């Protein structure tokens, strides 16, 4: 039977009994709709997740071990960094050091006084971490270490004490001009600010940091860090140096920054830890950020790490989220497949009834020259058309559903960090996959009825009942 004739006959049969068509298709439409809807949603969540937690980066920490109350934890030092760097799968190993004593940030922002805890919430990282980000690299420098100190100044003169108002501050202790400590924050912090702080405090929403700075001026980004200071009342942490203040300036947003907190050049944290917490703390890293050559080599690296008693992988939040998303993905896709699977059984049932109802018609086709294969192809073709139409309708329904959800999300759900404008990521291949699955399931469902139709003895099919 020529393909064109087959196609014509199949289409003719499909439109001929709309009731049968709808009953067979409805389940598949729902199942495929769910499939597309879930898949596009999950894809979006994954995309957001990976933008927050880069896959090829892992964080190595020292495991906490204590015996009989004695802390035996290993320490991460420069040797540890060098050791990790010897691994072939490692491209880069960069230490982070956390501020180990109380400190407070304060300043004025848009006319409001703000104060926030800094100790423990501040990391130092080497310049090379941000070297590939041109917006930040030029500014993320340790001015004190480079000797950019001076001229002498009078702190009483405030903002006018130093020649470079934007980038310098006058230190109250040595009465010299210093470069402000450059600070970067993570996109998460920006999101938290935009969605949680800005609205409730009537502060401006910050879209692109650079644009904000260009519009409002560098000086808006100034604040002060009070070292050896704390917001926590009654805190009795021993501080080995006198409280002092340094000027800081927020220079930009980076994914490399501490997720919640401030990030400054490593040299500052080393010196401040030495000054306020002792020599020991100045040599101890809090973690080592390891960038792998390839995200697929994580397993190799993890295996090696497990054999190193001194090291372990930080339980990555990203990995945990990733696992949760993966499980949810599997569950949702399983649900879709169950729906489509039940629909396929439903199609099989409908088609069995159809084949019985249409036995005389099938007999006539055989009498005028249809082979068993022709009959098989006609029934399968009808199933495939139902699959095709259901796949397209299901995809369309999912897309419309997504528009509805996005509208509801925009209109009814308050802003929160990383709230996406659309909750769905419709890639073309999702639709291709959906229609493909739909056709496949329908053809599978139609298989047994089609075989029954093909194997019917024409004489029996034509017999008058």
């Amino acid at each position: 039977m020529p393909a064109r004739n087959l196609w014509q006959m199949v289409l003719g049969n499909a439109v001929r009994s709309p009731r049968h068509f709808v009953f067979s298709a409805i389940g598949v439409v729902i199942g495929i709709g769910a499939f597309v809807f879930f898949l596009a949603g999950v894809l979006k969540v994954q995309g957001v997740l990976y933008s927050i937690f880069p896959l090829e980066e892992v964080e190595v920490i020292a495991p906490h071990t204590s015996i009989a109350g004695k802390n035996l934890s290993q320490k991460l030092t420069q040797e540890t960094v060098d050791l990790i760097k010897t691994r072939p799968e490692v491209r880069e190993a960069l230490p982070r050091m956390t501020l180990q004593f109380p400190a407070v940030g304060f300043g004025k922002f848009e006319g409001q006084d703000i104060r926030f805890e800094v100790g423990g919430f501040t990391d130092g990282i080497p310049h090379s971490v941000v070297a590939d980000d041109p917006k930040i690299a030029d500014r993320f420098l340790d001015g004190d270490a480079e000797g950019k100190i001076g001229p002498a100044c009078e702190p009483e003169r405030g903002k006018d004490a130093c020649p470079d108002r934007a980038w310098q501050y006058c230190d109250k202790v040595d009465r010299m001009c210093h470069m402000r400590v450059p600070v970067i924050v993570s996109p998460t912090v920006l999101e938290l600010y935009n969605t949680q702080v800005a609205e409730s405090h009537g502060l401006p929403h910050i879209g692109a940091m650079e644009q904000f700075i260009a519009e409002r001026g560098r000086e808006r980004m100034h604040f002060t860090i009070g070292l050896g200071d704390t917001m926590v009342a009654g805190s009795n942490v021993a501080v080995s140096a006198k409280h002092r203040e340094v000027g800081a300036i927020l220079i930009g947003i980076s994914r490399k920054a501490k997720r919640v907190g401030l990030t400054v050049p490593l040299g500052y944290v080393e010196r401040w830890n030495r000054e306020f917490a002792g020599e020991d703390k100045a040599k101890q890293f809090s973690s080592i950020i390891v960038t792998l050559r390839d995200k697929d080599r994580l397993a190799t690296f993890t295996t090696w790490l497990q054999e190193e008693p001194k090291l372990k992988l930080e339980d990555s939040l990203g990995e945990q989220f990733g696992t949760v998303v993966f499980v949810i993905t599997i569950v949702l896709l399983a649900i879709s497949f169950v729906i489509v699977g039940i629909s396929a059984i439903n199609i099989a049932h409908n088609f069995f009834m159809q084949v019985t109802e249409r036995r005389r018609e099938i007999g006539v086709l055989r009498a005028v020259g249809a082979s068993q294969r022709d009959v098989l192809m006609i029934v399968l073709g009808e199933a495939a058309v139902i699959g095709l139409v259901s796949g397209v309708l299901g995809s369309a329904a999912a897309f419309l559903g997504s528009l509805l959800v996005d509208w509801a999300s925009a209109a009814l759900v308050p802003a929160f960090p990383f709230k996406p404008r659309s909750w769905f990521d419709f890639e073309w291949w999702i639709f291709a996959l959906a229609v493909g699955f739909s056709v496949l399931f329908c053809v599978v469902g139609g298989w047994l009825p089609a075989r029954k139709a093909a194997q019917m003895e024409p004489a029996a099919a034509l017999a008058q009942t």
Partner: protein
Amino acid sequence: MTREPVIQLEQVRKSYGEGAGTTQVLRGVSLEVPRGELIALVGQSGSGKSTLLNIVGGLDKADGGNVRVLGHDYRSTSEPELARLRNKKIGFVFQAFNLLDHLTCLGNVTLPASFAAGARDVVRRGQAALGRVGLGDFAHRKPSELSGGQKQRVAIARALFNEPELLLCDEPTGNLDSATGHEVIEFFRELNEKDGVTLMIVTHERRMSTIARRVITMRDGQIVEGDQAGDEDTGGPA
């Protein structure tokens, strides 16, 4: 080739069912039908006439014996080959017309073309076949709009679409009034005389026996041959 009989049956047997419920429908039927023959197959209801016709047309399979039709030995003929044979060389006309209600008359008549590779002039030939049975103006009507006689003529046009060598008719006038039935019988006679089509017609119609060159009577799955078989045919409706 032309010498060879169109139909050759040797000791054809057929039974339905298994075990105790087995019905022997054909008990060794042998028959030769030469080209250009017009055979009337008569006999009481249940005597196996339809079964025999179906086996000749390849719509049913014999349990035993040899079936040879238009040069094809059915034991060594594959299923697709048999389908092609029905498509090209054998036409069927049934008592119940067996038109497809969702197709137009033309659609029904040209249905065989759907299963033939490279069928040409389909619409023109369909129109010609309809014209031949006097229904040229009915091409785009649906069967439901036609009378019984018209329906049977459409069915005949479908059977003639590929200009078959053999026409198998199972009680073609059984659902028609006698006037219409006679028209159909007359049409078959003409087809046989003018076009040389071989016809095998299961019938209760006494008139058919008069135009038939040969009347074969069946009883209990066996042929009781004889040209005056019409006398034995008690003619109860099937």
